[in-house]
């Protein structure tokens, strides 16, 4: 227990979390602090590039095994199934319409790559060495949840989803996935030699860039929360905290069944616990325009993202260490 509290305290006083909190506080104080859109985009490109490349190098070091393939499959299955659990919870805990509940559920089966990056950083700081291919697991978990959400609407809703042919291609080829997977493959091909060539660029500045990016995320989350407080009922708020914990439980079970290292289990828990706020909202605006975006964006970005970042990841780390570290 003391260990868990120490991890939580360390996490809460780390620069990345304190910068996130600064962003939220600045937004609530109505400060004009902002990160220009193009710089924020540049920071996210850097983070995806660095995390993908490092993952690929790690796979080059350790080689491919059946666990890699099984982890990819398990990630995909989790992404398909978690929205069904989320939908059932939402119908039980809130008065959301079928279409709003399905749209929210889709977000919770997909992932937040920033939460994943933060968890990777925490794992590394804690001396864990997660499996490099978890980057690829993150990539495959992005899209299946969107299909689940659309299936839920078709099965339980009165309206149909607008499932046009270009949508799937857009989801699978969205810039974040292409860069993450592309950098992963390049890291895999070039291995340690490639890493030595670009290490000064992707290792030393990484934490600083993550701090700036999380400052921006804090500003966005704070502004979103400030403006959308009216949509947040107690039931929705509770869902935003309970669902990541349940998701993390499924991630824990999956990671342990696969025999992953504690770092790998932590990342699987984090992926299953996180909710998308980039790829899925865009897909939902196209496929389910009747769903209220303030509900799903406020939940995923305003509640679940800060929860995972501040409390969730230290808890998942402690659990992964206790159950998978033996």
């Amino acid at each position: 227990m003391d260990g868990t509290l120490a991890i939580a305290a360390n996490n809460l006083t780390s620069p990345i979390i304190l910068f996130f909190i600064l962003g939220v506080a600045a937004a609530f104080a109505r400060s004009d602090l902002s990160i220009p859109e193009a710089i924020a985009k540049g920071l996210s490109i850097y983070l995806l590039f660095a995390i993908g490349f490092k993952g690929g190098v790690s796979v080059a070091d350790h080689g491919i095994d059946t666990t890699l393939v099984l982890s990819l499959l398990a990630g995909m299955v989790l992404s398909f199934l978690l929205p069904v659990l989320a939908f059932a919870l939402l119908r039980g805990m809130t008065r959301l319409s079928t279409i709003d509940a399905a749209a929210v559920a889709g977000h919770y089966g997909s992932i937040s790559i920033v939460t994943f990056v933060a968890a990777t950083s925490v794992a590394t700081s804690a001396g864990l060495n997660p499996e490099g291919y978890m980057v690829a697991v993150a990539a495959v978990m992005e899209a299946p949840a969107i299909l689940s959400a659309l299936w839920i609407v078709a099965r339980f809703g009165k309206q149909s989803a607008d499932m046009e042919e270009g949508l799937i291609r857009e989801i699978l080829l969205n810039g974040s996935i292409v860069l993450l997977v592309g950098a992963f493959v390049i890291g895999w091909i070039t291995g340690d030699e490639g890493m030595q060539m670009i290490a000064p660029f992707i290792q030393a500045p990484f934490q600083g860039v993550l701090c700036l990016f999380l400052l921006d995320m804090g500003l966005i989350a704070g502004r979103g929360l400030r403006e959308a407080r009216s949509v947040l009922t107690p039931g929705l708020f509770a869902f935003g905290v309970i669902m990541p914990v349940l998701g993390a439980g499924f991630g824990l079970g999956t990671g342990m069944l696969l025999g992953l290292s504690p770092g790998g289990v932590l990342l699987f828990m984090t992926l299953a616990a996180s909710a998308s706020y980039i790829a899925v909202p865009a897909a939902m605006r196209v496929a389910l325009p009747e769903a209220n975006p303030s509900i799903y964006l406020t939940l995923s970005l305003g509640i679940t993202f800060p929860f995972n970042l501040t409390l969730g990841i230290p808890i998942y780390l402690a659990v992964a260490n206790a159950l998978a570290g033996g």
Partner: protein
Amino acid sequence: MQTHKAKRVDIIIEAVMEKRLTNALHKAEVTGYTVLPVLAGSGRSGQWTREGEIGRAGGMVNVSCIVRPERVDPLLDAAFAVVERHIGVVSVVDCEVLRAERF
């Protein structure tokens, strides 16, 4: 200066729908349009601003087309098929242009 009557159609729509709308316009043989970023606004769903948007899910764009009056109905039919279920504003105003052969 000789001017000619034309119609300007402004369609303010979510950024994620921009490509779909411009594709529909091309199919309707409306090949001239201008896409402008929209900074902020207020409507039935309340106020919104580009500041604090993440990704393209929440942003809006303004697709502006100037056409000959007889081309307005096919343009609106094509646009409406795309924007029908989405938030946004479609407006048509009279205008005058200098070089009619370009529209």
